[in-house]
């Protein structure tokens, strides 16, 4: 089976879902991206990426509890699937391999 392609931004979101574990939902992921990667992203972009990841089977979701700060609306909480974990591992492996192939030349 060919692996589904993992885009750059999708990878970032997927990593954040992994980091936040159980507590991953739209705004939290947005905040995390801002804090860890110093990137300001639109909330709608995060949602779109999460949907795509779910379609590809990299994350799964369930509805969480309602809170007052959300005007009484529930969160959809995302977590990594096994597939998702593997996709991250694989991407990382490929990266590492490629890294080692860069000749050690002093860059000016």
């Amino acid at each position: 089976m060919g692996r589904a392609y993992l885009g750059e931004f999708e990878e970032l979101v997927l990593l954040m879902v992994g980091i936040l574990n159980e507590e991953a939902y739209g705004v939290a992921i947005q905040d995390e991206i801002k804090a860890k990667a110093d990137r300001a992203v639109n909330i709608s972009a995060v949602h779109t990426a999460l949907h795509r990841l779910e379609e590809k089977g990299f994350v799964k979701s369930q509805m969480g509890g309602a809170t007052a700060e959300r005007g009484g609306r529930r969160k959809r909480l995302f977590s990594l699937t096994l597939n998702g974990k593997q996709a991250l591992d694989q991407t990382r492996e490929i990266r590492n391999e490629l890294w080692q192939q860069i000749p050690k030349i002093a860059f000016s």
Partner: protein
Amino acid sequence: MNPLPQPPRWALRFLRWYCHPAFLEEIEGDLYELFYRRAEDRNTGYARRLFVWEVFRFFRLRMLRKFTLIIHFAMWQNHFKIALRNMQRQKAFTAINILGLAVAITTAIFMLLWVSHEWSYDRFLTRADDIFRVYSNSEFGNGEIATWGTVPQPLEKVLRDEHPEIERIVLMGTSQEANLGLSEKVFKEKGIYAGKEMFEVFSFPLLEGNPTEALRNISDITISEDLARKYFGENWKGNSLGKTIRVNEHYDATVTGVFANIPDNSTLRFDFVLSVEDLVERYPWQKEWGNFNFQMYIQLKENADAKSAGVNIAQAINRHFPDAEATLYLHPFTREHLYSHFENGVEAGGKILYVRIFSIVALFLILIACINFMNLATARAVRRAKEVGVRKVIGATRASLIGQFMSESVLTVFISMILVVIGLELLMPYFNSLTGKHLSIHYGDPVYWMVFLAITLFTGFLSGSYPSFFLSSFKVVRILKGTLKFGKEAVWVRMGLVVFQFSLSIFLIIGALVVHQQISFIRNQNLGLDRENMLFFDQSGKMNADYPALKEKMLAVPGVVSLSVSDQNPLMVQNSTGSPQWEGKDPDLDMYFHVIKVNEDFLENMHISLASGRNFSKDYSLDSANYLINETSARAMGLTDPLEKSLEVWGRKGKIIGVIKDFHITSIHTPIEPVILTLRPEDCGFMFVRTAPGQTESAIAGLGAIYKEYNGNLPMDYRFMDETYNRYYESEMVMGKLTRYFAGIAIFIACLGLLGLASFSAQQRTREIGIRKVLGASVPNLVLLISKEFMLLVGVAFVIACAGGAWLMDQWLSEYAYRIEPGIGLFALAGIISLAVAWLTIMFQSLRAATANPVTSIRTE
């Protein structure tokens, strides 16, 4: 406790409308969470704005709910069919609607093209927003602040050394002509002198050469693609860099770049660029702080704050040369084209005025045409009442009826769009020659189609708005019982709309008349010197040295009356200096004078008269240090008896020997300013020749031959003084022509509507007129009966238009230092024109109704 802030309800409703229910809760939750957080961190307004923004950002295919799009195809087909039948049944009204809309929309699209072209000026440059032109403000003795587009040359170094926020600077000499020669090919070309970083600041693409290498040396030149082709032939590519071109038979310049021809929408226009260093070195006195001779453009560093840069730079001249008392002002280059007037040191509009006026007028024209549609539709409502009733009984909702009538109006606009496209194609060349632009519609570009579609829908909905609500509001029971009475309101609205149409049209007529009168006033204004039959050309050094003999030769040419030399066109004086010192000058007084270098023949040739004293004369050897001043100077210097008072200009000390009558030194927009004449024939680069009326041709032929003798067979490139003067008023002339067209179009469309209403009213009253006639009413009586109501409306419109017109035109005229006062006659003329046109329109219809045979009209039932 304050109630919790709430996001905008409409945005929330919109979200709920489009969003897939499966995702709605989480999205709403996230948006709420962000909203509350932002409301707390910043403020509610900010949070609400971002909320709306994000609702729109979520509008993605992925998030959309399933829309069940029910197209009642049969129903729409029926609407369409009914609309077409209605149009066919009432051919005259349909024609009026379509024609009016087509004319209005065509005009509006032309205006849209023009306006968008005006807006596009200079915005094609990369980092255009970082470019600023440096203006200097200086205060006159009377407290008025004058804004100059020029600065002294040493400023460049100061800005470079002391202002790190500036990335690049281009010093520029004012646009000039130069003779460029390549062996035998010598032509006069238009270009500029500019600093090294010219092509780095202004991203005019270099087809050959490199922006960071071009213009680096004093003898470098860059030329346009056109010039490269002209001088180096079709194979100019790869064949022109490094070649030398002889400039003004003076030195060889190396071609270091070929730039693409400057686009139409560029404020800077030139065919070549020479190094500004050359200009500076040739006239070293320009290196002094006191001489404001150069334009300057700066490019701020990316992300630099323009406001604080402006504050920092403001005093740059004064820090180094306190005498100047000139503060600098950074004007965004993208505003250079549309906002180029300055009043009291502050930007005060410019061409933007015309852009605004024409945009509004174009909108008005569409509005007038839409009103025609509305009026005809509501006036004929009675005929559609039964249809509305039956539809409602069968179960049509009000919304679907509105949809039906809207689709009728959109269809009408759509048909007129076909005429619009044809009209645009046919009239485009005339429009371009009128406005002096090269505009066209690119039918391949989807943007144009989108705009067309937008205009169709906008106009369709606008004209359908009132009729559809009006027609769909009828009560079924009343219609079917036949007791439907149209309230007075509908009639009032209709009359109000007619008044509105005609107010606008008459207002435009008044505008056209005022503009026309002001322009002819300007053109016939006594300028204090005689600009008719005066031609001028550059004179070379050889000619200057041989002036006495040359003068004799030229005066011998048939048709030549007199001649003189000066260093600039006295109707286009550009330089100014603060250096003059005179007896009794208040040391704190800061005043700027325009200095014109002339010879002894200047006054006589220009027909400038002396108020007192004497002219320069060869009999007085000391006159080279003496001065003539104009009356404004005398007043400004505070001298009641200026004769024989000492005056020092540019370090040359002499006396005032005469006072000349004032003459205009620039456009009539600006009042006359202080002028000093100094006798320096050796510095005079222009020769002015007055010809006898009607003999200009022969004079030019004779002068040209003499010119060639002195200039190695170069043809004489002459201009006429009145032409250069008229050029000041080009935009007014275009404006004058356009308002005339607009006024004509507006009254035409309004009269179309009137024609429709009058014929409808005549139809309605067929039987009434018949009975009146049987009872003995005369034809004039009946004509009056039908037309008086409409004439009254036009009369009311006239009064409104006069009030509005008088006020607005006064605003426009206040731009001019010398202006007309629009009198009663002008308004009366506008009134006569509009009433006559309206009356003729109605007359045709009312005469037909009044002369009809009463037997046929009464027998109709």
